[in-house]
């Protein structure tokens, strides 16, 4: 019986078995940002420790950066202090840092792949749960807490329990207007927000194979929303083509050696999985969340579920969600009025996301009363989009065109919902209070669906606008 990519990569990175029975796992790439690292660096100082592999550690600033004015000091004093702290920490511990104004700055999960830092067969850790994004390249990538950030800084290793591996195959074909975001929202809807606990998800099947690297990143990004800390796709020719020529990708004669190794760590055709599930692509419609967790999602052409018809385990959260969202069971989700439209986040802020949204926005205009913003995932994406003229399409349609960062996905910068506003959002979490207002409401959907909602002023089936 063959082995999965997960098993191969895990075993190669295993330093030893610890007395607790956990594995001490070598981390090939450590990504650092300003929110979850300052306490870790402080603990390092207090213990007199140095970074063991500074050359495998890269930092940027994304969560707290404003997306309108970038002049220093930042208007928000606390944000300025966090920015100053990571600048100082990177300098003192000898870590490469892409700060405000750097051509390489952006959302940590966007710039890793962009720079060619993210590669197949690596283990990748970052103090951020959406680190699973990097699994799109066939890396084993996962989020960690601040004490574990300290552990990786000090030892380049982590104490980890080995998870099981579930293959999630998406079969058949997708209809028009159905995107990678819809695929992952559908997977979470079917397998549950806690269904992946204790598992790594191997995303596979013809639809994942047909996806571009950016689409694969969108799927892997939200593995954690399904409870799986790790989500990955086996590397293939698309993966290698994406990486070729990028700044940190292997160069020259080493390129062929790298590709050979990357192929060798892919899952074998007869690999053993702890679990194997298949979902039909034909069943996936443009998908919208209606509740307070990403599993509470339906097709845009469906009606809202009735709690009394739901499984016992989902009923209480569903009732809580209906109350918070002020939606009525049995009503259609299409037509739900929105106040804000947000295109951005590590899930959906890449160039292909912006192109799809721009196709919908082209020649149309944002509905009066709707506040709409587009926040590219990185400086490089912003430049690329502007070279293509996408910013002009968005501006002409009434969208704000902003500087790169995490922005309204979690509202640690000035971009926030106000009061009970409803936001059509291309981000990853619809938790209560997530977008900066305790009573603000979030409807997750694809960037094209967000653009459609912005123009109609309400949730709309984007297929009618393509």
């Amino acid at each position, binding site marked *: 019986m063959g082995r999965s990519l997960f098993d191969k990569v895990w075993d190669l990175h295993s330093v030893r078995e610890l007395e607790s029975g956990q594995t001490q796992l070598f981390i090939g790439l450590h990504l650092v940002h300003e929110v979850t690292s300052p306490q870790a660096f402080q603990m390092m100082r207090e213990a007199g420790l140095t970074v063991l592999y500074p050359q495998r550690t890269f930092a940027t600033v994304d969560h707290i950066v404003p997306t309108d004015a970038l002049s220093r000091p930042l208007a928000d004093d606390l944000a300025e202090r966090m920015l100053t702290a990571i600048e100082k920490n990177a300098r003192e511990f000898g870590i490469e840092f892409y700060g405000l104004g750097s051509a390489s700055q952006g959302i940590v999960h966007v710039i890793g792949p962009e720079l060619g830092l993210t590669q197949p067969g690596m283990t990748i850790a970052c103090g951020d749960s959406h680190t699973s994004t990097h699994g799109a390249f066939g890396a084993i990538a996962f989020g960690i807490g601040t004490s574990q950030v300290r552990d990786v800084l000090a030892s380049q290793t982590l*104490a980890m329990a080995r998870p099981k591996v579930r293959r999630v195959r998406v079969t058949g074909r997708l209809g028009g207007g159905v995107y990678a975001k819809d695929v992952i929202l559908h997977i979470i809807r079917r397998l549950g*927000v806690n269904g992946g606990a204790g598992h790594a998800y191997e995303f596979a099947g013809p639809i994942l194979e047909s996806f571009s690297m950016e689409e694969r990143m969108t799927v892997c990004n939200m593995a954690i929303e399904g409870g799986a800390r790790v989500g990955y796709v086996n590397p293939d020719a698309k993966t290698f083509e994406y990486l070729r020529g990028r700044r940190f990708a292997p160069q020259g004669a080493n390129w062929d050696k790298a590709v050979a190794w990357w192929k060798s760590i892919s899952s074998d055709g007869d690999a053993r999985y702890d679990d194997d599930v298949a979902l039909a692509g034909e069943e996936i419609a443009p998908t919208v969340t209606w509740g307070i967790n990403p599993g509470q999602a339906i097709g845009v052409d469906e009606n809202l579920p009735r709690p009394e018809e739901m499984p016992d385990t989902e009923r209480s959260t569903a009732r809580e969600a209906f109350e918070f969202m002020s939606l009525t069971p049995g009503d259609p989700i299409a037509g739900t009025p929105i106040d804000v439209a947000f295109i951005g986040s590590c899930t959906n802020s890449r160039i292909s996301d912006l192109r799809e949204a721009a196709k919908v926005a082209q020649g149309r205009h944002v509905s009066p009363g709707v506040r709409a913003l587009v926040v590219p995932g990185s400086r490089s994406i912003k430049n690329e989009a502007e070279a293509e003229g996408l910013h002009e399409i968005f501006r002409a349609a009434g969208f704000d065109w902003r500087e790169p960062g995490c922005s309204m996905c979690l*509202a640690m910068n000035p971009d926030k919902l106000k009061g009970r506003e409803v936001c059509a959002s291309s981000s990853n979490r619809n938790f209560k209070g997530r977008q900066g207002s305790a009573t603000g409401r979030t409807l997750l959907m694809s960037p094209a669906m967000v653009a459609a909602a912005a123009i109609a002023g309400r949730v709309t089936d984007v297929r009618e606008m393509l």
Partner: protein
Amino acid sequence: MSAAKPEELKVSRRAGRAVPVDGDDIDTDRIIPARFMKGITFEGLENHVFEDVRTGPDGKSLGHPFDDPRFQGARVLLVDRNFGCGSSREHAPQAITRWGIQALVAESYAEIFFGNCVTLGIPAVAVSRDDMATLKQLVRDEPRAEVIVDLKERVVICRDQRFPARMPDGARKQLQEGTWDATQALLSAGDAIRSTASRLPYVSGFEGAAR
């Protein structure tokens, strides 16, 4: 990182009054909203734990158990399924433990949240859904009752009733043996770390790899 020896860090039993918080899928944004993560230390997070479900926009109390006089001084938190889902922010268990909680009992936890509890030396055990319902009722009926979380016996005890408690073996051993503060244990691998790195061709940029 603690300078204490493993002997002083051993966690096998925690006991105290308990506070029940209802709801499946309570996420880390609800435990500590992101706006309170603006800072370079964990200090003061206890003042904002569960803030948005404790205080309404008008500043009035929403009657959350953390504000219920009966549960003040609680040391054990009783919660439901998939507690701590969402982000990897260690700020969530930090806020909870700085408020005074020293042990958690749930039906289940999200994985990263659970790992963060372990790295802070906080025992977080799981009981069945039915047992949690009974446990919460016992505490609501008698808020002064002591709840004991015993890792050695793998049990939660309240008012003479015993509830079987689960925790992954590795984490339980780390707590019981006082090795949950992992940095020193990891560093003690010494040369084994570099030798593992040396068999990973990407670490050298594929310089040494066979073609």
